[in-house]
């Protein structure tokens, strides 16, 4: 079975900026895949190359086994892209826009599917409204609807929840999860790392146009993140070894310690008391993607 996405040796330069510096990755069919990285890491350029909006200088990209340059029609039929920018055509209503988008993909009489998408995205009541009249969150959902009109097996969402309120975000993820359960491959870029952690089975991290980490979410958390113990002390103390090796950060009387097992907490607190530390506040934290992200970005 072909992978949903195959990227091999892709480079792309914009004048002096090396946007992609040799990217290789594969996304299997049915995966929920995260593409993370700081601004300017190359995420959107990679998506643009995949969607035919940009042309790579070298390397190949395939969607469902179809080369995006040589066999662009089949590749684009297999791909639905939700762009990062909140763009829309002000001349048309939501339904007109979805009918037109269906036609671009060679589909006529698509109203049954359009109605289903509108229902799932809670846009049925706005089908006849001009795109200009929609709120930001509705426009974002209309963009998702547009990407789905041709029932693509692979869906790429480029920061789909930027500027979307919490309730809408939950609704959107519920729908995207359902699409994934129905067999669609989902590729997500987001700056909300907790979203990536809870949704994505595998994650690639990009920095300066290179893949600097690629693994399952669980493995990344295990390898690069620890449980944390956040303490506020009455006064700053100096922890002796071996406890000092557990310090992740220290700012005055605020101390962040890392540990692997809950059994370690007793030893850490005992060591702190022995060093004369008096605890005024304490919080436990689980390993999270933010630690992984910061750790990997600092390493590279």
């Amino acid at each position: 079975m072909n992978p949903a996405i195959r990227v091999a040796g892709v480079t792309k330069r914009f004048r002096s900026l090396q946007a992609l510096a040799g990217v290789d990755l594969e996304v299997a069919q049915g995966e929920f895949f995260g593409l993370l990285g700081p601004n300017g890491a190359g995420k959107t350029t990679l998506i643009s190359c995949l969607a035919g909006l940009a042309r790579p200088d070298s390397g190949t990209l395939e969607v469902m086994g179809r080369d995006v340059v040589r066999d662009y029609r089949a590749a684009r039929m297999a791909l639905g892209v939700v762009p990062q920018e909140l763009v829309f055509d002000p001349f048309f209503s939501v339904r007109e826009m979805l009918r037109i988008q269906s036609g671009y993909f060679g589909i006529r009489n698509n109203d049954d599917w359009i109605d289903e998408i509108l229902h799932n995205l809670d846009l049925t009541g706005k089908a006849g409204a001009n795109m200009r009249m929609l709120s930001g969150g509705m426009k974002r959902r209309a963009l998702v609807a547009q990407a789905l009109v041709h029932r693509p097996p692979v869906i790429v969402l480029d920061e789909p929840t930027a500027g979307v309120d919490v309730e809408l975000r939950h609704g959107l993820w519920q729908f995207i999860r359902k699409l994934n359960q129905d067999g669609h491959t989902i590729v997500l870029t987001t700056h909300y790392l907790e979203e990536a952690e809870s949704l994505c089975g595998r994650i690639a991290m990009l920095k300066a146009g290179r893949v600097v980490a690629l693994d399952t979410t669980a493995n990344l958390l295990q390898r690069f993140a620890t449980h944390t113990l956040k303490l506020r002390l009455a006064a700053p103390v100096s922890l002796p070894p071996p406890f000092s090796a557990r310090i992740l950060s220290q700012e005055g009387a605020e101390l962040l310690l890392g540990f692997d097992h809950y059994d370690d907490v007793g030893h850490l607190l005992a060591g702190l008391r022995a060093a004369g530390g008096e605890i005024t506040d304490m919080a436990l934290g689980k390993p999270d993607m933010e630690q992984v992200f910061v750790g990997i970005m600092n390493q590279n």
Partner: protein
Amino acid sequence: MEGFKTLLYKECLRFWKVGFQTVLSPVLTAVLYLLIFGHVLEGHVQPYPGVSYTAFLVPGLVMMTVLQNAFANSSSSLIQSKITGNIVFVLLPPISYREFYAAYVIASVLRGVACGVGVLLVSLPFAALSLAEPGWVMAFTLIGGAFLGSLGVIAGIWADKFDQLAAFQNFLIMPLTMLSGVFYSIHSLPAFWQGVSHFNPFFFMIDGFRYGFFGVSDVSPWVSIGVVSVCFVVLAVITLQMLARGYKLRA
């Protein structure tokens, strides 16, 4: 093919939805030209024997409206889509660059024809028009509209802001149309300017189109159709090359 048809339909729907601006306004402008120039010059100027000045003016105004609106359609649609960012909706689907080109150019011709027919209909009460050779009228409308539609695609893709497009329109399209013999026969010009007019492809479009109405023209319609066709083919090749390379559309 469905993608092409939908893009063509969308481009037509786009201008039709704002018909006051895209069809009725140019018709009104042309009729104002007709009323003012016709009133001032009727009886003073007779470009062709047996043809009144107002009758002479009507085909020129019709063709000028066709050309200007064909250019306006593709250029304004593309620059709006680029600036608002919704051009991605046309670039993401499996539409080839040839289909893209054909849809924008045909929609431009259709808008040009809609405006031209409007000017013609409104002008009929003001001038007795004959239709000596309707085939020439059709041929120059289609090729002239396609030429300007192509030029509009180039301008719309090249321009990064409305200001640049306005410069293209005001410093190139407008002078070339106004100085193409819409309001006069080039035989009324000094020899030097008659020569210069022969470097203006718009002159051949207007002159050939007018031949279709009166059966007389400043140059042979065969020469005009040859010049206009060669110009269109050259422009079409340039435009298709730009689209094939993804110039300013695909990074």
